């Protein structure tokens, strides 16, 4: 089992024929992802990577029955692409694109919610169900199948965390990179209950960072609803205030959004909080051998 995606899910790629879309779609196909086609306006009717190309998402959905879209459309056009997917009946859009204007994402997300479409990202590595389905840009070989679910704002920390879990002899059910922008799709609070319900997931790793309060919301949620053990790391304990640390959303404004307040809230919720990401693997081992 897994959450959100598996080898049966039919996936289309928006921005299919672009260089990023092509490179990563090829890698996803090699991993086993069931990519059934893609969308690039004015290239409808062509074939790309052995799959049909469509002019619109609606055509792609009608012809293939796809329910998931992986979005590589450039930042200036990504909101449009996401809204198009929502109206065409896509159930989950995984938005890889980095640098989308915040105003556009507010609009796109509101529209997605209105049409019942879930979104992941933007500016994220995507989602992977180990050894089944990769929808994103992560190195698939790191994610060995196992019993740990992973949710992370950061791409490379996702890989770091998964790699440590595997080195300790465990593995991953599904890993979700939720992205570090100010406006993101699915977050801890929506993903945690999915892992709670997934019979194969026995522990959850959540990796957060400074800025915003999603981790605080997650702490409250964990306290009341999550019975499986959770290990957490919050990046940016040593980050200066008022500076944006790479991710658009990773900024401590005034006294809000510090690593410390998030770590304290998670600890109070019974989460095993590690001070260094180097201890994620060991902490998973500890909670799973209890």
């Amino acid at each position, binding site marked *: 089992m897994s959450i959100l995606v598996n080898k049966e899910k039919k996936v289309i790629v928006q921005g299919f024929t672009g260089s990023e879309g092509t490179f990563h779609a090829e890698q996803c196909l090699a991993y086993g992802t069931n990519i059934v086609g893609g969308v690039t306006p004015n290239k409808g009717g062509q074939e790309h990577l052995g799959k049909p190309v469509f002019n619109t998402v609606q055509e792609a959905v009608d012809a293939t029955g796809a329910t998931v879209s992986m979005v590589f459309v450039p*930042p200036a056009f990504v909101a449009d692409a996401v809204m198009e997917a929502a109206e065409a009946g896509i159930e989950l859009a995984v938005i890889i694109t980095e640098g989308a204007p915040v*105003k556009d994402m507010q*609009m796109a997300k509101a529209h997605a919610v209105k049409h019942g479409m879930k979104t992941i990202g933007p500016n994220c590595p995507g989602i992977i169900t180990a050894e089944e389905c990769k929808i994103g840009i992560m190195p698939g070989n790191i994610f060995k199948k196992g019993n740990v679910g992973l949710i992370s704002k950061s791409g*490379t*920390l996702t890989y770091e965390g998964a790699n440590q879990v595997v080195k300790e002899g465990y593995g991953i059910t599904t890993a979700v990179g939720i992205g570090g922008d100010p*406006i993101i799709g699915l977050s801890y609070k929506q993903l945690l209950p999915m892992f709670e319900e997934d019979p194969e997931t026995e522990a959850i790793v959540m990796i957060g960072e400074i800025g*915003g309060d999603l981790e605080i919301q997650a702490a409250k949620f964990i306290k009341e609803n999550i019975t499986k053990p959770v290990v957490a790391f919050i990046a940016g304990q040593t980050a200066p205030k008022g500076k944006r640390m790479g991710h658009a959303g990773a900024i401590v404004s005034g006294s809000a959004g510090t690593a410390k307040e998030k770590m304290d809230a998670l600890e109070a919720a019974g989460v095993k909080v590690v001070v260094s*990401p180097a201890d994620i693997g060991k902490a998973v081992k500890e909670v799973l051998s209890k």
Partner: protein
Amino acid sequence: MNIHEYQAKQIFAQYGVPTPRGIVANTPEEAVKAAHELGGNIWVVKAQIHAGGRGLGGGVKLAKSIEEVEQLAREILGMTLVTHQTGPEGKLVQKVYIEEGADIQDELYLGVVLDRAKEMPVIMASTEGGMEIEKVAEESPDKIVKVAVDPAIGFQPFHGRELVFGLGITDKNEQKKFMQFASKLYNVYMDKDAEMIEINPLIKTGAGDFLALDGKMGFDDSALYRHPEIEEMRDISEEDPDEREAAQYGLSYIALDGEIGCMVNGAGLAMGTMDTINYMGGTPANFLDVGGKANAETVAKGFEIILKNPKVKAIFVNIFGGIVRCDRIANGILEATKMVDVHVPVVVRLDGTNAEEAAEILANANIPNVIPATDLADGAKKAVEAAKGAK
């Protein structure tokens, strides 16, 4: 990206947000000319830097004669202004804004920012103008009125009513003026892809008019491509030259005050690396994200920028190789050490795809100041030891 007060007020004026009249000046002579042009008998001379707290630092002064305008402009232009937001090194004042004096009856606060939890803009208003809003939020949160505006419907009269009743504005004429003020400010925020707007203080004059006495604006960098008029307002002297140089090469760099230079791929891992160095008893000298394509050129540029900082005693290169394989990155690092004279120990940790091949490449290269590490903890530990040994 941030802009100066005088630039924010230019934008306000375009949208009909009322401000006192003012003219920017680069020299005392220009300041005098500006004061003549504005007329009246009282002026404010305001230092233009990208930081709050200018008044307390001595960068905002009242002049009651043209001679005084000249004298104050002479004092303020060229001064290094230190405020709680500039850091101890302060900021050089290169421009002053000459503004007509205003008849201040009340000082209020008005701002627009993104409410990340509600995922829409929120207008914040307070009767405690002139005070730092974070302080008000801590000490008397009940004095801040917050009204979120759904962009799908835009600013509606009920938003305005929530604001004026929340602030206790009872005069009907004043209510109307304030609602218009807030509505126009919301339009500025949306149209210009602002990240935040802050007017502190927003004043009520004796005549019951509302004026933006100050103006601060920051913009969403990702949306600047569609606002060339904002990009033109960029003042590069307000930006850190190293951060700027790094950005030109696609690197994200922020200087800190420790001893261990960090070069990492990915913003999260870069922060996590700083945290780990700290945890191991060392101090990080910087945040540096080399991005997804760590190659010889980006790594060499990273070394160059890190080594500009004389406090750096060791460098920790921490790369998690995904799609870009570690063996390639290892070769890139070796090449970079030939391109730049790296005179401090460099601890290299490469993990992920083809990590073993990479370790072999580094070991065989046999460069004395390159120290291979097996994982994040090992690398951080070795970097801390190397920095201590170098003292």
